[in-house]
């Protein structure tokens, strides 16, 4: 049986409006938290739920909240990270478009737990129409007394504002996002200090992903223990997976963690298998930054066990034969996909999006892009492949923020699992299996 937490009511007509949302039990958690629970009790329930950050890193949400500095006496802030720019990821957009009140409800409970009187939703600038939807929902919540002063007659005050980005993947990184919210370039800060101590305007700040916050209402209503009954082991709850690439049913799915990758990929309820009856070649399971896995390793672990959609199972085998759940951006490649071209494409992405503060990332991503472009265009040299591995290893771990790692992993993993394809491109570029794509080689690179 499919069990849903977030998208349970997504098909209810008019669910985007306050009235309908409220009639389905929406905002009950705010009443419960504010009237019957202390902030610490809310934090405890979130800890007990085992909910892990849905933005990519999977850090336990309750634990992150408990780091917030309560002694400084400074105002505290909650930032909802709706920058969603990781290639392959489009779940937050879906959630905000369909269920804006679910996010606002979760944010109210979260701000109460953190003692924050201001929350910002940082939305990527490309989602302009979502900004309108969110502002409409916020307006309704103010009118109904769920935002503003003395919420529901309690002493709790809260303002939530939407802030727009303007096109920069790096602003999804939490400290870059804080800089951007302060009206600056999105250059990540050195950590420590962590945002929980020195964040927005130098004040204690928690940054959480949209999906993470959308889960809080359920946890408050039903208790952390109930939430933890969903999922398996340390992967509790459900997860939104955005599926794309060469599949029959691209889209956003809420799955209970623990579903097998095979079922997710082939069941008509989800991806519905590879498009046009082609063979599966590879999958990037958690957004472009996580290692790519060949068909043989995505369905089963190296030890031959069924691979599951959980943080642990996808990571089984480390970076040698595993990957990560990441942001839940599930990209499927069929037999015709050219791994070399795709790797060059992603290298170009990371080069373009590097903020340029650290030399290994700024220069390394540029080198990786050029070397891959050379191979893809038939001018590669045999030693280029090891050169790429070497550049990737020198970026990894040597930068201010994880974008450097995120740029290195896709390339290192593509070469690890598809080395023969890179060699083939160097030796016989004319034989590229993907001649249909190669004829567009003269597409302008800007």
């Amino acid at each position, binding site marked *: 049986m499919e069990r849903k937490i977030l998208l349970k009511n997504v098909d209810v007509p008019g669910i985007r409006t306050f009235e309908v949302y409220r009639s389905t039990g929406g905002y009950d958690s705010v009443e419960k938290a504010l009237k019957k629970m202390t902030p610490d009790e809310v934090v405890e329930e979130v800890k007990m739920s085992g909910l892990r950050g849905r933005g990519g890193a999977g850090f336990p949400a309750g634990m992150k909240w408990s780091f917030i500095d309560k002694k400084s006496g400074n105002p505290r802030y909650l930032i909802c990270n709706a920058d969603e720019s990781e290639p392959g990821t489009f779940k937050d957009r879906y959630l905000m478009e369909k269920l804006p009140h679910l996010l606002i409800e979760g944010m109210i409970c979260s701000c109460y737990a953190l003692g924050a009187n201001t929350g910002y939703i940082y939305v990527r600038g490309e989602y302009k129409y979502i900004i309108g939807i969110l502002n409409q929902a916020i307006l309704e919540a103010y009118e109904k007394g769920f935002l503003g002063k003395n919420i529901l007659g309690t002493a709790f005050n809260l303002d939530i504002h939407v802030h727009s980005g*303007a096109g920069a993947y790096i602003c999804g990184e939490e400290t870059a996002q804080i800089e*951007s919210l*302060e*009206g600056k370039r999105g250059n990540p800060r050195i950590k420590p200090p962590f945002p929980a101590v020195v964040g927005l*305007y130098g004040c204690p700040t928690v940054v959480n992903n949209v999906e993470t916050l959308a889960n809080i209402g359920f946890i408050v209503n039903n208790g952390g223990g109930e939430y933890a009954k969903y999922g398996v082991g340390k992967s509790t709850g459900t997860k939104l997976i955005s599926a*794309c*690439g060469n599949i029959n049913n691209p889209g956003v799915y809420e799955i209970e963690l623990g579903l097998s990758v095979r079922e997710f990929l082939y069941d008509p309820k989800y991806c519905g298998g590879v498009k046009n009856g082609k063979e599966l070649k590879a999958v990037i399971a958690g957004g472009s930054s996580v290692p790519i896995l060949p068909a043989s390793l995505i369905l089963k672990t190296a030890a031959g066990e069924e691979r599951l959609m959980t943080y642990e199972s996808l990571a089984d085998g480390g970076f040698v034969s595993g990957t990560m759940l990441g942001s839940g951006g599930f990209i499927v490649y069929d037999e015709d996909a050219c791994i070399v071209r795709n790797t060059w494409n992603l290298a170009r992405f990371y080069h373009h999006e590097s903020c340029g503060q650290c030399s290994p990332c*700024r220069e390394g991503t540029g080198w990786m892009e050029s070397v891959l472009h050379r191979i893809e265009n038939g001018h590669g040299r045999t030693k280029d492949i090891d050169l790429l591995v070497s550049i990737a290893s020198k970026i990894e771990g040597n930068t201010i923020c994880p974008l450097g790692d995120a740029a290195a992993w896709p390339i290192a993993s593509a070469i690890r699992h598809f080395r023969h394809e890179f060699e083939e491109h160097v030796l016989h570029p004319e034989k590229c299996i993907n001649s249909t*794509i190669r004829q567009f080689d003269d597409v302008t690179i*800007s």
Partner: protein
Amino acid sequence: MLDKKINHPLHAKTDIPVRFSEETLERVRKIIERYPAGKQKSALLPLLHMAQEEFLGYLSVDVMDYIASLLEIQPIEVYEVATFYSQYYLDPVGKNVIEICRTGPCAICGGEAIQSYLEQKLAIKTGETTPDGLFTLKAVECLGACGSAPVMQVNTEFYEFLTEEKIDHILDDLRRKSSEEKPEASKWKEKFF
């Protein structure tokens, strides 16, 4: 890196008077109020979106200086932000800016062919503007709509599951509407009420 070169000499002046309407200024005040006192610089990103849309379609030095004066910050603080973010244009653009997604998931679903088709239909290269000033074609990174690949954005409206026929249709439609004013409801300032 995202850094873009500013092609105009820094003191280039346009003839267009730069001042938001009273109505927009009221919006501006409301946006500034969303941030704590003294932190009005936080309003820079939303204001630049509004300025780009309201004045020239791109950010001239005059426009950037005006925004700096509104927020009581140094012009350089505006320039460094405007050069960092890809949605701010520093050079004149056509009436319609077409941003085609070029990233992996779109590319494996036919995005590259669509980009080529756009270049062919508009008879320009990516990055250029048509001589009639109607279209500028840009290639951008993942638009967060990979499930509807290939996708593009025109003046921040999304177009999904693109095919050549759809492109023909969209371009015709945009040409037909080229003399019309942009609908109020789709403007940046309408999203921040």
